[in-house]
């Protein structure tokens, strides 16, 4: 993630340099991977927010703070199974659905 963000920033800088100096090069019109930032930035942000929440929670409530991620991941798993319920029904019917 951190590497990806660095590469994207580098690509953006390269494009900026090309734009400033009007350099005629085959790379001038190449696209940057800016779309990756839509994924990388929320992930990095929520990781650090989660780390901060876990740190504060541990010193406030002890190891019992782990109940929150247990419940969350369990619920997310149930949601994923529910969203793909048609295929689960197909599997449970042994292919006769």
């Amino acid at each position: 993630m951190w590497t990806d963000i660095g590469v994207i920033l580098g690509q953006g800088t390269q494009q900026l340099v090309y734009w400033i100096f009007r350099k005629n090069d085959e790379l001038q019109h190449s696209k940057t991977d800016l779309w990756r930032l839509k994924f990388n930035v929320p992930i990095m942000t929520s990781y650090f927010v989660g780390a901060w929440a876990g740190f504060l929670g541990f010193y406030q409530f002890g190891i019992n703070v782990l109940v929150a991620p247990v419940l969350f991941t369990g619920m997310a798993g149930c949601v994923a199974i529910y969203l793909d319920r048609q295929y689960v029904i197909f599997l449970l019917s042994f292919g006769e659905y």
Partner: protein
Amino acid sequence: MPPAGWVYGSRTFKPGGKSWTWYDTRQRGPCKKHTNGSSLVQNFRQVLRVSLTGATLAFVAGYVNAVSLSSVYRLTVTHMTVTTIHAFFSPGWRSRFSLGGLQGVVARLGLDISQLANPSVSERSLGDDIAADLCVLFGFLIGSVCTGIVVGPSLYAFARLARAPTILNENKTKQNYRYYRMRVSWRYGVGLILEALCLSMMLIFHSTDSPKAALFFAGTGMGLQNSLTSVYSGSLLRTTHLTV
């Protein structure tokens, strides 16, 4: 001489216009929905879904990592090989702002093993530290193996390969979307439930004063999560190894 392009079924990825573009032989021109770079993500809803999923799982990873760092062995369970911000999330970090305190599990393991020759260090505590490092490492590996067993080959890759020319229809672009997107599968649900079980085992073992077993299950849960998100997104997302 530049390559002519790469052919994937009826589609070709080749230079055209200002950059490399997808071309469809049946459309006799560039694909409208398949442009260079953004081919992994097709629409706003998909971007939102994938980034929200990744962000929430990253929140869980950061949370569990902070709890693990704050507990007995002060070991990171999400960053195996690289420098972490270990010292900042534990009390007395100013006194432990050293190389050993800032490394991931593999580096710590190497440091511990190198200390075996040092007679001033007690063998018992060192052996304990090495065992804890190995618990996390093998836990992570076993988590990834579990994902491989549950999910199998990347469903994302399958989804891309499943673009049969007979199914694709130019007039039904919305129906064609499902062959490109990162599809939700019940297999990921099973993986997430396994992760929840691993984290609850971590909670139980930590409560019963078995920190090594707790570390093992924490590593297993994080390994499951990391490999699930990697497989889900075709290695676009990583929710635990952020600094790699």
